[in-house]
């Protein structure tokens, strides 16, 4: 062996070593997420990338409309995993933008809490389209000084004793859901004419007890801090968390009548080019520790780990699309115009 062939052999060895090293470091493709804020924490992404070698690319959306527009633009080909709320799930499935869940690949399904394991509201025609992932509710925020124990019933908002100390969410659809739930209607999302009339009267009665309506988390919190408010029909857990952070002694409760809940599901895009990477991400985030971390960081309920104080998932009525948005808005306008 002359020096020449030795050199060739050496360089070949080096090349082999280099290329095998490259094979280890090379990511096994990419998973592209379409998610809401807080659903792809950088810490989880880093851990996932290290663990699996799959690169994560996140696209955040601010709302339902924006999300469906993004999905429709490419028939889902731009994304692998999409988080979709229960109310919109059927529309995505009907338009074939998402694919049924392959339960054999969903190895983390066993981590789900019992109330979420059924996935009933994500199942259409026998196929399951979403895995429950994060949830919250539109519950009651109450002042703990005025109410040492949480009020049992929503009716306390109508109590003249608290006139001018109650605030309520200004949102046509959810206000009508709320009225229907307080009146004990079985399906608050599909009301009859008679039920609409009852809900309208109930909401007008509430209006007379209100200090004001509010829109958005920030506004609710600001009004509470600047005025003498003791009760709120809120936008969610975050309202109470924000007030507690500001030093207000408030509690969050789901009264006996129940409350509207929202539930976001992990789904697989119908246009995914890398389903294995999609399931790898879903299995990763469905670990109990990730759920607990999300609850701690963002105040969302987890489906794998019941956060402290959030023991009421089974009493929530998961949001569904209402029978007629236009009609609900017209009725809500009548409530707001009433004297």
């Amino acid at each position: 062996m002359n020096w020449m062939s030795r050199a060739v052999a050496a360089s070949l060895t080096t090349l082999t070593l280099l290329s095998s090293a490259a094979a280890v470091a090379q990511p096994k493709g990419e998973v592209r997420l379409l998610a809401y804020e807080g659903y792809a924490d950088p810490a989880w992404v880093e851990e996932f990338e290290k663990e699996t070698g799959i690169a994560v690319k996140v696209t955040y959306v601010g709302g339902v409309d924006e999300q469906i527009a993004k999905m429709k633009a490419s028939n889902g080909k731009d994304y692998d995993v999409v988080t979709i709320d229960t109310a919109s799930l059927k529309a995505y499935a009907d338009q074939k933008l998402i694919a049924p869940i392959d339960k054999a690949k969903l190895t983390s399904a066993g981590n789900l809490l019992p109330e979420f394991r059924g996935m009933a509201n994500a199942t259409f025609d026998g196929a399951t389209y979403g895995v429950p992932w994060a949830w919250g509710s539109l519950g009651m925020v109450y002042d703990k000084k005025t109410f040492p124990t949480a009020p049992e019933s929503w009716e306390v908002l109508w109590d003249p004793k608290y006139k001018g100390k109650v605030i309520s969410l200004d949102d046509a659809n959810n206000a009508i859901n709320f009225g229907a739930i307080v009146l004990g209607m079985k399906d608050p999302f599909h009301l009859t004419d008679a039920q609409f009339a009852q809900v309208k009267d109930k909401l007008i009665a509430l209006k007379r007890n209100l200090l004001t309506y509010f829109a958005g988390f920030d506004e609710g919190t600001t009004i509470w801090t600047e005025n003498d408010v003791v009760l709120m029909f809120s936008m969610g857990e975050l309202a109470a968390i924000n007030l507690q952070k500001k030093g207000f002694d408030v509690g969050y409760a789901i009264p006996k009548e129940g409350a509207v809940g929202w539930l976001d599901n992990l789904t697989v895009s119908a246009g995914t080019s890398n389903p294995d990477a999609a399931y790898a991400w879903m299995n990763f985030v469905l670990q109990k520790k990730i759920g607990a971390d999300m609850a701690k960081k963002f105040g969302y309920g987890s489906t794998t780990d019941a956060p402290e104080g959030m023991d009421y998932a089974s009493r929530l009525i998961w949001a569904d699309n209402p029978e007629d948005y236009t009609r609900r808005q017209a009725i809500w306008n009548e409530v707001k115009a009433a004297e």
Partner: protein
Amino acid sequence: MNTSLRRDRQDLLRAGLGHALNLGLPLLFVVIPILSFVVVSFWTLQDGQILLIPTLANYRTFFTDGSYLPVYLQTVGLSLQVTLVNVALSTAIALFIFRRTPRMRFLILMSFMLPLFMSYIIKVYSIRSILGQRGLLNEAMLGLGLIDQPIEALLFSRTAIFIALAVLYLPYAILPMYLALDRIPANYLAASADLGATPIQTLRDVVLPLGRPGIAAGAVFTFILTFGDFVTPQMVGGTQGFTFGRIVFSQFGLALNWPLGSALAVILLATTLLAVALAGLSLRREHVR
């Protein structure tokens, strides 16, 4: 001969192009967008779908259905009240500025215009934190011993809407009023004084009549801005904060009732055009006399 003809043609072409731009730009960016919602206002909404079937139903809804007409009339009333108060205030303030030395005038005028450099939302939030139950005003009056417990009705009431709108839109009334006064030649005032008029007489017979265009412009600005405001009343008015602008706004969210929303917007636009026309008419009458 030939060259002059060509030049004529070139001039004609240039003039034509100029006219096309003069007419075309406003047409493209103002008239067509406005016409587009006039068109939408005649469409039909059926089962949540907008259909291109012409109908008057959206306008009928305004006159017959539930709450639209009463809210409209209430909002017109509120806007007229704010306009009246702001015209009085801005006239007084403009006169006050007008009577200072030229250098002082600019300084005072600028200080009244300063709020225009601030974000609208920040101003509404500030007004709210001043009027709130734990707000500046209540705390101050409590501290001074003027009241025993916070006045609750300051914020989240019709009064609050009225105060907030008047404060927000006052600069828009002061500016045209002041500019109108500023155009009055100084020798008119001197002449009036030389002829033996008292300052009050000069004000009544010289200054105010010459300031009329300013009053009209200020009134129109205030009315239009107040009438179309759909944020302020909602934020400071509490359960009373439902105005016509809010109804228009509400048709474009999840309700997706663009035809009705457009019809209501057309009514809003017609109302503001009427305000402009009335102001113009009042000025013309002055000329004739």
